[in-house]
């Protein structure tokens, strides 16, 4: 496994302060390695987006980061903690080192500026020395990368289709060739044909540019196909982490298992769909112990009392981690 590029340690993100705070992300540890696609899945409301926004500090009020560290390892030089950067430093860090593609492309582009303006101003902001000509050449190149002809540069966002806008956003995310690209459900609004097109292009670009991707969705089948490793979130915590294929083949956490048995397969024999009974937990009143235990078919004594730590299961392969008393950790993951 290659070296880490982004290390999240004990990250906690709340909405609100004090007693009213909703702890949407709780003590999350996650490592993104250079050049890999890390999938982050989990049902709606489990805190995926909050995690993504929290670690880049883009969470709107009343969101606050209440603890933890986000270490970024530049290609050369010592690691930096994103959470301690001043606004000016943060501004320089953003996009040049880590960029984000948001869920709704329709709302991510400023409706009153041309695509070109929006593409160019990020280059201008971070690389003020470039000439205008060089910049515009770069913009054309970027559009071409995502399969849009350069004459669309002067269009306004509303003149493009949803898929094209999403691709423009991807092109923009890659404009400064960052090390990390965070994608929050970049394709849920699109239909499958378009989705596949975009993912295809993204895979291609990753091979060429070598950035790492944190890919967020709740569509597990998409992740299994597209990512290298998958982390599953439930109730604000990571409950399982494993290479994609292994996770699909043998899920350790009952929740993961439930997820995998909730979507019908398109090919192969028609299989039994079990689903997950019950409904997601209320973040304000989390059950004690393992958050999943009220819905868990395999729950037993310790589940309702003690919080299972996330760690490599004693009975599993290396490179995996799970937080479940069914698979007690061999040793906790070092922080």
């Amino acid at each position, binding site marked *: 496994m290659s070296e880490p590029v982004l290390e999240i340690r004990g990250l906690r993100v709340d909405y609100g302060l004090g007693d009213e705070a909703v702890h949407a992300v709780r003590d999350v540890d996650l490592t993104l390695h250079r050049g890999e696609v890390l999938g982050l899945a989990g049902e709606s409301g489990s805190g995926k987006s909050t995690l993504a926004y929290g670690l880049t500090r883009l969470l*709107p009020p009343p969101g606050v980061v209440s603890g933890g560290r986000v270490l970024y390892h530049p290609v050369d030089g010592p690691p930096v903690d994103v959470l301690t950067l001043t606004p000016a430093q943060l501004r320089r*860090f953003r996009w040049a080192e880590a960029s984000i593609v948001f869920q709704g492309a329709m709302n991510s582009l400023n409706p009153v*500026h041309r695509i070109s303006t929006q593409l160019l101003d990020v280059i201008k902001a971070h690389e003020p020395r470039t000439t205008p000509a060089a910049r515009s050449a770069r913009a054309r190149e970027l559009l071409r990368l995502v399969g849009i002809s350069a004459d669309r540069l002067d269009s306004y966002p509303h003149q493009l289709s949803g898929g094209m806008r999403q691709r423009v956003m991807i092109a*923009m995310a890659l404009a400064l060739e960052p090390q990390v690209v965070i994608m929050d459900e970049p394709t849920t609004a699109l239909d499958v044909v378009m989705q596949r097109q975009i993912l295809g292009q993204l895979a291609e670009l990753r091979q060429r540019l070598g950035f790492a991707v944190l890919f967020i969705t709740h569509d597990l089948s998409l992740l299994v196909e597209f990512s290298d490793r998958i982390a599953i979130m439930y109730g604000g915590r990571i409950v399982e982490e494993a290479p994609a294929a292994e996770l699909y083949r043998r899920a350790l956490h009952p929740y993961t298992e439930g997820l995998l048995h909730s979507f019908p397969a398109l090919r192969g024999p028609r299989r039994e769909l079990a689903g997950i009974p019950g409904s997601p937990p209320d973040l304000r009143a989390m059950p004690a112990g393992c958050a999943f235990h009220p819905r868990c078919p395999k729950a037993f004594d310790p589940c309702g009392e003690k919080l299972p730590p996330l760690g490599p299961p004693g009975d599993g392969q290396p490179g995996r981690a799970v937080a479940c008393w069914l698979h007690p950790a061999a040793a906790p993951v070092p922080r």
Partner: protein
Amino acid sequence: MTYLLRRVGFYLFTAWAALTLNFFIPRLIPGDPVKSLISRYQGQLSSDAIRSLYVLFGIDAHDSLWDQYVDYWKQLLHGDLGLSFTAFPAPVSEVILDALPWTLALVGITTLVSFALGTGLGVLAGWRRGSWVDGLLPATTFLSSVPYFWLGLVAIALLAGPGSFFPSSGGYDPGLVPAPDTIFLGSAVRHSLLPAATILISSMSGWILSMRNMMVTVAAEDYITVAHAKGLPERRVALNYAARNALLPNVAGFALSLGFIVGGTLLVEIVFSYPGLGFLLFRAVGAKDYPLMQGIFLVITLSVLVANLLADVVYLMLDPRTRKEG
């Protein structure tokens, strides 16, 4: 293109409706101008003089309403607004032309300044929520609820007075002849300071508040977060992204509120005895000078319409989404 045409069609319709309304309102007024003149000359006009005034104004002629309406349009299309009663026999257009520049200069400039300043402060307040600018809000709320005329009265009481730099009334020092020289212009500017400040103070807060609210709304849009994520300089995010988008609804609001502004500043003109349209209208209403009322109303309505049209054009230029066909 279609958009603009539709707007023009709408304006034509509105103009027609407003002008028709304009025609009917004075005709429904029960009193007559001669009686009102008497009250101006309270006790000075004998009963005989009154009789001669009726003859003078030719008030007893009775056409059918429809004929009058047709005549009204004929006259209008010739640019003829009739003769004023109070300034008989001066044509209404002349009386209005005397007053118009004052209102244009005072109200027009102040309105623009108020919009610009208010919008600017609103951008600041909305962008840096919780900073000192937000502290302005309670004060502005209070000021925007103060009636214009009362603020004017207080301003006169506190600031104007014998020997003060601020004159309490009029458009320029009596005795001066309107001419483009420094004496006259200086005097005119001095006379406009208090009324302008009054309008500014009580109208600006509206812009501050609406712009602030719009900024807050826009600041939560995804594309603003994206702009932050892009690491753009704060100024650029605030101005090119947030303010630029927040401005759009305000431009439309600006055009629409012009009507309110003209109405509101009427009182400022009354309080400061400023020789503008509002004051003229006030006098015309008092004197039942309905040709003059009609004329002023027409001018106000048309200028609001024109301002709206302009605002539409500006909006068209600002918001690419309205330029769908091209």
